């Protein structure tokens, strides 16, 4: 009986070590994403603008995983966007956006920013792409990718445009730890099963 228990422990430990070494149990990255949108004012019409001077009505539109909307974050949660220059980009790092949900403050600090402006079918488009870090309650949490787009029709006047953006952050599940806990659980069940089995045997022998 003891031998089989020993075998179980050894084989379980081997499985855990094996899986961790092959990387299956090591953290498989799952990406949380959050989408935002709103209105912005540029320092000139989009075709020759170099900076956003004001963001208004910025809010959360969609999200997944840790940012799931409306599970974790309420739809239309207000977001504070800081004005920034994209041509050339504002000297980074820049605290680009922040919002608070359930007493947790999320903030994106951008380290790099690229832009592409192009005329397509007579209308003007602006795409921005950047990388940085997500900060949670002021603590640097995880690397983040950021993308942003806006547009202005050929005949549009003024400097106000609408925009949308998305940020993705890797969320690392506890791969190895989970497996160890799982193995411990199975081991525990097996231990109690054996204990019960032994108890029954003793009772039968006493009879």
């Amino acid at each position: 009986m003891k031998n089989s228990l020993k075998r179980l422990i050894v084989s379980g430990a081997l499985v855990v070590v094996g899986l961790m070494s092959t990387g299956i149990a090591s953290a498989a990255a799952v990406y949380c994403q959050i989408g935002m949108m709103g209105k912005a004012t540029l320092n000139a019409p989009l075709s020759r603008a170099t900076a956003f001077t004001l963001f208004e009505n910025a809010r959360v539109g969609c999200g997944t995983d840790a940012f799931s909307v409306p599970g974790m974050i309420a739809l239309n949660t207000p977001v504070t966007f800081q004005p920034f220059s994209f041509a050339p980009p504002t000297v980074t790092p820049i605290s680009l956006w922040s919002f608070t949900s359930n007493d947790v403050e999320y903030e994106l600090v951008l380290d790099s920013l690229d832009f592409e402006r192009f005329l397509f079918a007579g209308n003007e488009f602006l795409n921005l792409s950047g990388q940085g870090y997500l900060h949670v309650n002021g603590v640097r949490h995880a690397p983040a990718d950021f993308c942003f787009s806006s547009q202005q029709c050929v005949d549009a006047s003024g400097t106000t445009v609408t925009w949308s953006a998305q940020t993705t952050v890797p969320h690392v599940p506890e791969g190895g730890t989970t497996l160890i806990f799982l193995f411990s659980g199975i081991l525990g069940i097996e231990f109690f099963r054996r204990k019960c089995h032994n108890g029954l045997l003793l009772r039968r022998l006493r009879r």
Partner: protein
Amino acid sequence: MKHYLKRAIVLVGLLASLASAGPALAATILGQVSFTGTATFNGPLSTATAVTEFTNVRVEAGTGDYAVPSLVPLNTSVTIASLIFDPLPAPVAPLWSFTVGGTEYTFDLTTMAMARMTMGANHFLSLSGTGIARATGFEDTIGDFTLSAQQAVNASGTTVTFSAEAVVPSATVPEPGVVGLAAAALLVPVLRRRRCRA
């Protein structure tokens, strides 16, 4: 000289009467309106060919006959029809619509072009189209429509945020007030010339 003055007065009168004839000329739409919302595609943005659903779409900004907030309240709810963009769509009527008071604003899409871009491994979609803007009490007016959306490199899922704008070109039909002003401007040099000669 009298003949010139008479002709000028007749011309001004004619233009003024055309201007005051009103509704037929005055009612073309003039302005621009911008939206934001979320769009669900039929696949990741890099390979998607259609928007299957637009949700939480709202008016963010507007000018002229779409002026926000004086004519159209901020965050007015907008309905946008599902849209196939690859291959390019057949006319969609209406592509979008919203109602304020008794006025219904719509836009029928007639042509569209699509561009997909990748930058920093992030995916971008740009749509550019033309169509006919309609509003209760106004003449149908030709307008432009643009939409853009983006999806970050590691994002999964098919729902993203988007922004869009429609502009009704001012060059289509001049307002009657403008016609009247032009007529008056024509009359001024004639009168001056006559005074100088006198």
